[in-house]
């Protein structure tokens, strides 16, 4: 137990809560980087996935992109980005954004594509224009899956941002990588606690957002949907 006592002492030491290497700054770096990468990925991926789903084209490509994404190790993407653009924040941002795109494309494609054709016909019969059908019918019904894709990507990005300490970027991964390199297992363990807590918090928070964005009409079914976990990059 003395090891866990040392880890607790690490957290209680005020030195670890100050300055650029302190927990608040590392946490902020991690959250900003993950948030920016997920946001940019969503801005790129959502129009593609939604357009493909709306027009019913390119289905195989939209589905396969996340299978291919799963097969590419995120560790390799990060190191490749480092070889191309150097050390620090740029390779981390590029790698994380690339990794976040596939799940969002696939989920938004499936979400829009799987909207019941009868519902779309009914909307058309009510005199809705195509644009109105997309924004007032298809997108609200697709929201649960679209949000699930964004959540998958965000959790993956938070995880992979941990590895970005390897390319000399900051974030909470620094504690793990530095602790490991210095054989300071207390620091490493404390870093793991912080990283795991942030990943779990991301998962739960975006799960809550997902639940709140589900249109009321879709909420009646009781059992929580249990699709397979979609991605585990790092």
């Amino acid at each position, binding site marked *: 137990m003395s090891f866990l006592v040392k880890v607790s002492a690490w957290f209680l030491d005020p030195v670890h809560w100050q300055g650029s290497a302190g927990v608040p700054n590392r946490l902020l770096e991690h959250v900003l980087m993950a948030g920016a990468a997920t946001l940019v990925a969503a801005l790129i991926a959502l129009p593609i996935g939604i357009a493909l789903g709306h027009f019913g084209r390119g289905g195989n490509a939209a589905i396969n992109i996340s299978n291919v994404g799963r*097969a590419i*190790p995120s*560790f*390799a993407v990060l190191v490749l980005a480092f070889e191309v653009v150097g050390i620090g924040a740029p390779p981390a941002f590029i790698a994380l954004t690339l990794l976040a795109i596939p799940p969002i494309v696939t989920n938004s494609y499936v979400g829009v594509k799987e909207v019941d054709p009868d519902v779309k016909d009914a909307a058309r019969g009510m005199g809705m224009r195509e644009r109105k059908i997309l924004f007032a019918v298809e997108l609200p019904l697709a929201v649960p899956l679209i949000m699930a894709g964004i959540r998958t990507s965000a959790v993956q990005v938070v995880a992979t941002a941990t590895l970005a300490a390897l390319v000399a970027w900051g974030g909470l991964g620094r504690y793990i990588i530095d602790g490991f390199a210095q054989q300071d297992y207390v620091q490493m363990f404390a870093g*793991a606690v912080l990283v*795991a807590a942030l990943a*779990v918090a991301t998962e739960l928070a975006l799960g809550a957002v997902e639940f709140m964005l589900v249109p009321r009409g879709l909420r009646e079914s009781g059992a929580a949907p249990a699709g*397979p*976990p979609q991605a585990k990059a790092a």
Partner: protein
Amino acid sequence: MNLFLDATDPWIRVSYLQNHAADFEADLAEHVELTLIAVLVGLLIALPLGVLIYRRRGLRNPVLGVTGVLYSIPSLALFAFLIPYTGLTYVTAEIGLVGYTILILVRNTVVGLEAVPADVRDAARGMGYRPLKQLLWVELPLALPSIFAGVRIATVTTIGLVTVTALIGEGGLGRLILEGLIRDFKTPLVVGTVLSILLAAVADLGLAGIQRLVMPWSR
């Protein structure tokens, strides 16, 4: 030859490929071994666990909820939790990898069993099947496509995660990627990445082929 900070480092250096073919083979073999153990041990644990959750309805949402949350824990953090106790060992790598495959496979087992039509279960009961026989001869075969889909996802995911175990001294092909990073040398990085992607593709297609052969009803 000093390769560090070599501005002319090409993406592929042929002489390195020729001199290290044996290393690539060893790394590939280790990668396959780490993956196989993770998926097989994961399956041995996940199948009974999935059946148990399916039988005890009250366990379903809590267990699937908790596994979903555990799944979001980054692998590097999980390894960091284990190292103080199990050290920089093969065991540490496998505990982490097996853990993630369990989370995928339990979910797919439960979902597959739940998708068995109630009519089919009634018919089996009407024909006098006892619960165990019904499970083994009716429910599990019908859940097999979903379980198999889980095995494919788990295999491809594990092949990717194995590369991260290079950071704790294992890693298979991940070792080549790490070497590329540490020496700022592109050739091992490219080789490790390409072989890892190819391994995932071959494994996925191979498993899909096996699925078609042993489960013609899942087409």
